[in-house]
């Protein structure tokens, strides 16, 4: 069964460092998302991406964040200068079409020390 793949599964980084979280969405999907879940809290929307541009973003997704689809398969989330409060599980999700269900990857646990 096709699935969304995320790498790495766990990343530890020093405060102020840049990190890139990688996702390979399901191959025929057109809509891509990043969500995060701080430990013990709800899943929060960060950004959606369609047709090679950002469709919508939340207040969390400030200038420190950026997304890219550098080739036909990868979808990346970059955090330029990590802060302690960026520590969370980051989920990538993809959808085949509008108003279809989103499929989530296994997540990348980011720990900023």
């Amino acid at each position, binding site marked *: 069964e096709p699935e969304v793949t995320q790498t790495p599964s766990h990343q530890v980084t020093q405060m102020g460092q840049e990190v890139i979280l990688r996702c390979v969405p399901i191959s025929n999907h057109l809509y891509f998302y990043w969500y995060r879940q701080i430990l013990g809290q709800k899943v929060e*929307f960060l950004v959606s991406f*369609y047709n090679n541009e950002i469709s*919508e973003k939340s207040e969390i997704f400030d200038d420190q964040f950026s997304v890219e689809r550098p080739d036909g398969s990868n979808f990346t989330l970059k955090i330029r200068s990590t802060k302690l409060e960026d520590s969370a599980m980051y989920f990538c999700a993809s959808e085949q079409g509008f108003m279809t*269900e*989103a499929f*989530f990857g*296994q997540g990348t646990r980011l720990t900023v020390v």
Partner: protein
Amino acid sequence: EDKVVQSPLSLVVHEGDTVTLNCSYEVTNFRSLLWYKQEKKAPTFLFMLTSSGIEKKSGRLSSILDKKELFSILNITATQTGDSAIYLCAIRTGTYKYIFGTGTRLKVLA
């Protein structure tokens, strides 16, 4: 502000029991409601509901949406230990965004 509220926050039952999980919402632009099961990491899709009164079923799980009263329920009959998980309700608002509730943590004891 858009809001999705799930209840109860947690629930402990014994195998064979039936459980009902609730999701109520207040959003400005409702498109659909989705239920996900989160065990260790990734939420896995259960149901998507767009119309009121139409029950969706999958094995022992079923769900229904009431768009007038702004809520949905997820029923699990004859619970098993493998049903232990966090159940998440998410509302699609606008075109490209889901808002999640805090989830209901279900523990099924053998």
